[in-house]
């Protein structure tokens, strides 16, 4: 699936929820299911500092594609991180670098990306794209 096909799939999943709590329970569930990172990979190099919670992000090449792994200490952020990985991980650096993320807004979670100081999500998206741009140059 392309990045946009995955985004559309997530938007469809969220369309089923008519209650904010169902939406958040789904995100919390995704957060809990995300494998995360082993402690020894939660390094200062991988850290994306937010004011309230930290996010760790790792990237490596798998063939032509870029694979992301990430973790956060707050479960809602981790759920959102899990969706970002679902959308962007496993695509070519070019696709990732050129992608436009619209699903967060569409599922009504844009406030989490607007609070720039309160979590590392904005920086995480930026960092994922930076990795993609860097790997394009390699």
């Amino acid at each position: 699936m392309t990045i946009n096909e995955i985004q559309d799939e997530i938007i469809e999943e969220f369309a089923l929820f008519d209650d904010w709590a169902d939406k958040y329970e789904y995100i919390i569930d995704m957060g809990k299911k995300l494998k995360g990172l082993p402690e020894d990979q939660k390094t200062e190099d991988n850290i994306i500092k937010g004011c309230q919670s930290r996010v760790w992000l790792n990237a490596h090449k798998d063939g032509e594609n870029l694979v992301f792994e990430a973790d956060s200490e707050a479960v809602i952020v981790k759920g959102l991180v899990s969706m970002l990985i679902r959308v962007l991980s496993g695509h070519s650096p070019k696709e990732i670098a050129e992608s436009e993320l619209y699903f967060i807004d569409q599922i009504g979670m844009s406030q989490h990306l607007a609070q720039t100081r309160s979590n590392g999500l904005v920086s995480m998206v930026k960092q994922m794209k930076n990795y993609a741009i860097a790997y394009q140059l390699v």
Partner: protein
Amino acid sequence: MTLTEIVDIQKIRADFPVLDQEINGKKLVYFDNAATTQKPIAVINALKHYYEFDNANIHRGIHTLAERATRDFEATREAVRKFLGAASTEEIIFTSGTTNGINLVASTYGRKFIKEGDEIIISGLEHHSNIVPWQMLCEEKGITLKVIPVNDRGELDMEVYDQLLSEKVKLVSVNHVSNALGTINPIKEIIAKAHAVGAVVMIDGAQATSHLDIDVQDLDADFYAFSAHKLYGPTGVGALYGKKALLEAMPPYMGGGEMIKEVTFEKTTYNELPYKFEAGTPNIADVVALKAALEYMDSIGRDKIAAHEDMLLQYATEQLLQIEGLRMIGEAKNKVSVASFVIEGIHPQDIGVLLDNLGVAVRTGHHCTQPLMKRFNILGTTRASFAVYNTIEEVDRLIAGLHRVKKMLA
């Protein structure tokens, strides 16, 4: 004890238009008062009135509007003098807020009178704004920064304070009330002991002025700073109290208009107090509206405000402690209406996000007190802080919300 016995809560709530709204379909519960309080209609009207009828630059205009604006601006100075119990309006300097006041003292008194090898004492309860200005000064001048430690209840360890004091200490800067935990510090004792070794004392009053009666002369404080927005007033304005003799000995903070007596290219002479420290056009409208905020608090009665908030804190603490896995951070004997807590296994940010969806506004995180959070070995807390317009029913909403949050995250 019922609510109506202390204050007329419905009447007070009607004074705050912002409270009458829904968040995510639920009636707003605003418990982030230690960050900033909401503004009563009297303050909003004062701002509106100023811009509609009186706006002019102050002190030098000879037209009617300038006279009116100057009169109201200076009337607030007198109101602040009274509010703090200062001897003279010369000792009241308008600032942009507490942070500005602390930086002013660090940059002027600190730079001129504290030298290499001297020591400054702060405490483990401080907000970053009462840490960083002193660290900057210490780095610049080769001064040593010492810290009064915090005990498990969130109180200052006064025995260690006694040990830290020596002739080397030139300044002590502590908060009156901790923003993260609500602890009321024994500042009268702290000041007296500092004076005994010849040190001056700066008090960060940001969290105290909306809850406690302040009398700088009785406290014998050398400097006392506060922010208007934490006591129902506008943002962007505050005041610094300083003893006249100290202010006179201090060099100006910023150069510009207003703070001068005479300017030539060879030499400038500075204006008298308090104008020496008020360079540039000040935040006139917000200063004018600060008076309305002080009058508003007086109209309810500051003792009644404190009693109402105490009642809310007692009730909230009792209810919070019944939640399984919840631990209060900050259990000082003397504290203002701040309930800071952690819940086992749950990140504070998750609590904050979900409570917001339930219409309850709290603060989560490190509260700009990272060293204090480290002291308690926690990432941060969830903080509910209460003001005069909050109710028992709202505390119940918080408690019900926390049960729901726990269930959702389980």
